């Protein structure tokens, strides 16, 4: 199939960016979206032009690097699919595809489709951990964690930290991201001891980094490639209230 791409190009953080148009020719259905972009880049290189810069690494949907808004939807809008897992069989011959970076005040653009997500790191550094020192901890089976609790924590822990939730939210809130870690640790006995301090410091950091607050749009859950549920935001809100008492 042959496709027309409109891709956001921007030379640097201060540069004025714009959409440029490219043709993707002879694309196979079995190719992945990024392999299709690789081909476009090979053509650009061969014709002496600057290839499109985009973040990617694992190409199997787990590292959270790839971050493209495709036709207005972070990761392209297919259920539980990251950009790198998107395959060209989801498109048809003659389609026009708009490709843009994550857009949020807290995610300044480095170049083209690559953004700076260090704000998410700062949230994690503010409290996304249990303060256990290496060594000197109890036997793994000393704490019994019933299966439903372990499963709930695992559901929350599946967040890959890509930021699609931020990109899809009208307020650019990072609540889904933050709540996933808060919820995982709040339900586990290992995390309960610091739960109050954790939720306070992580939400403070979230606001300090320039993310918006949550007004219940649920766009984040819709966009999340790992199916992280807004119920974790509810958990975070509950933990936050508990911390005030």
């Amino acid at each position, binding site marked *: 199939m042959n496709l027309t791409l409109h891709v956001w190009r921007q030379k640097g953080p201060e540069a004025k960016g714009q959409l440029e148009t490219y043709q993707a020719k002879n694309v196979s259905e079995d*190719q992945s979206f990024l392999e299709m972009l690789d081909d476009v880049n090979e053509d650009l290189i061969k014709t002496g032009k600057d290839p499109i810069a985009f973040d990617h690494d694992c190409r*199997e949907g787990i590292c959270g690097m790839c971050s493209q808004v495709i036709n207005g939807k972070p990761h392209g809008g297919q259920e539980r699919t990251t950009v790198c897992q998107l395959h060209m069989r989801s498109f048809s011959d003659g389609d026009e595809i708009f490709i843009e970076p994550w857009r949020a005040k807290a995610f300044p653009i480095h170049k083209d489709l690559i953004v700076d997500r260090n704000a998410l790191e700062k949230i994690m550094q503010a409290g996304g951990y249990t303060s*256990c020192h290496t060594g000197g901890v109890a036997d793994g*089976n000393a704490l019994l964690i019933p299966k439903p609790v372990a499963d709930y924590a695992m559901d929350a822990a599946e967040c890959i930290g890509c930021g699609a939730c931020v990109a899809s939210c009208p307020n650019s809130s990072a609540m889904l991201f933050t709540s996933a870690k808060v919820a995982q640790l709040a339900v586990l006995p290992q995390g309960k001891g610091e739960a109050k301090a954790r939720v306070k410091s992580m939400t403070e950091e979230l606001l300090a980094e320039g993310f918006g607050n949550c007004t219940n749009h649920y766009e984040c859950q819709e966009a999340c490639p790992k199916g992280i549920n807004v119920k974790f935001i509810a958990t975070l809100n509950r933990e936050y209230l508990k911390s005030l008492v």
Partner: protein
Amino acid sequence: MILDGKAPTGPIEQSWDKHRFDMKLVNPANKRKYKILMVGTGLAGGAGAASLGELGYNVEAFCYQDSARRAHSIAAQGGINAAKNYPNDGDSIYRLFYDTIKGGDFRAREADVWRLAQVSNNIIDQCVAQGVPFARDYAGYLDNRSFGGAQVSRTFYARGQTGQQLLLGAYSALSRQVKAGTVKLHQRTEMVDLVVVDGVAKGITVRNLITGKLESHWGDAVVLATGGYVNVFYLSTNAMGCSVTAAWKAAKKGALFANPCYTQIHPTCIPQHGDKQSKLTLMSESLRNDGRCWVPKKKEDCDKPAAAIPEEDRDYYLERKYPSFGNLAPRDIASRAAKEQCDDERGVGPGKRGVYLDYQTAIDRVGESTIAERYGNLFEMYEKITDENAYKQPMRIYPAPHYSMGGLWVDYNCMSNVPGLFVLGEANFSVHGANRLGASALMQGLADGYFVIPYTIAGYLAGITPGTVKEDHPAFKQSVDETEAQVNKMLNIKGKKTVSELHRELGSVMWEDAGMARSDASLKNALKRIPEIRDEFWKNCNVTGEAGELNQQLENAGRLADFLEFAEVFAKDALHREESCGGHFRTEHQTDDGEAMRDDENFAYVGAWEFKGVGNEPELHKEPLKFENIKLAVRSYK
């Protein structure tokens, strides 16, 4: 030169405990005077940086991605081994030690493997304390499953995303130290050279991947936790950015590279769809707990849908060839068995390079929902890539390059022959011998990072004065100048072929000639082709853009340039090792039934290569392997 691994003497059961007592310590108040550079933030690097930071050292950690949590450890799926023996099925530290040595085809150092097995239990405890959500049973106890090469259930897991959860545990510990100020993180920063002063590692040169600027960092010790090199095959299960660069730059500064030809081909990966493929996707070995590998018995059945082939016409070849391990035969054996069926023209799927991994028996036994619970995300991943539902038709899989057992040579303290240079995790050669068992990589990364390096680095640092060499030493400027010169050289080639095209060519040669089956002829062909591709790179590659900007083509070019030198040493290692062991299979050295045939009399040693410059013969140094606790035996899984 005969190398000394400095393994402790005496009874192996006490070896690590005794060694920890014998090593010097660094006084708590003195630790903050030492600066340690950690390159790579995967399981080994993240755990190491966090643990060293907690102890009070001044740590600077580097990763090429935008976050320490992106390291490729994140993609590991199936599980982590430990000798807890919770299932009470016969496991012990000794058995894990034994299985790992045997699994490595008797080509690893005994003492290092014993230590690995011993600390494996501490790792599980540490991860639980971090809140890693391991699978648990209904009463709340940790659950286990089996992996290849073992007859006990010793693998702890978190769905099919164990690597992710373990890495996020280490990452959270690391984040705590960043907040505490003991670890400084440099993201989007790639190590491009090792700085050695008077034979001692004293720092690194890095490239800031956003600005393109080259920067110098001094350290009292340099730790490389930079992963494996199977992207030399171009198509592998590695992430796109994984490379041999950090290790290779160390090799060019004198660090010996051990057993580079020991590469692991993982038996169950999604088959290639076409020649635009950029990487291969792993389907966890844990699937072989419930999946049965088969191909049609008759060639003419290969085009039929699987459901149309009756049971009696199916060749469950692993069960046939290896009755006692069956589908859980170790990876090297399972990979060669799959290739054998396809070479016999009984492969399935497009290109006939695939075998079936069938869950029907298990689904009939425990139900689809149980299978979904154990592997859910893996089936989903498979469907996204192939558009096939593995609950309704068997998965198609084929072997793919996955892991490197070879790596920089290190002694028992994880220090290379270059003093002050430590190497952890997949980047070193130490514990997996010629074949790594499944669920052991996660174990090794965390063992090295949490429980080995904090002790062994102290033993080294206690003997040196901190901060004697800093960035103003001329060696740093020299390194930056040399790196800049190489960068400019690449940008000025202005040829016709892209980096990808040349990388694909290298990968194709390596897969055909130095992949699953190697021969004198194939390796000599590789040794002829590699320099040809390398020459073409330097004459005809088109590296776009500038040095002083975000430039992904330049990044890829630098990594390829290193692969093009490294590949030659890899092929030479394979050619010189005239035996078959683990993942290194020489067609001239096999038993009558096609199994690897070792030559313990002549090759029971670690082959550590000293690089002597492009175009010059590398020099081989040997570390003889002594097996005092395990009897050398033919490695059989029948």
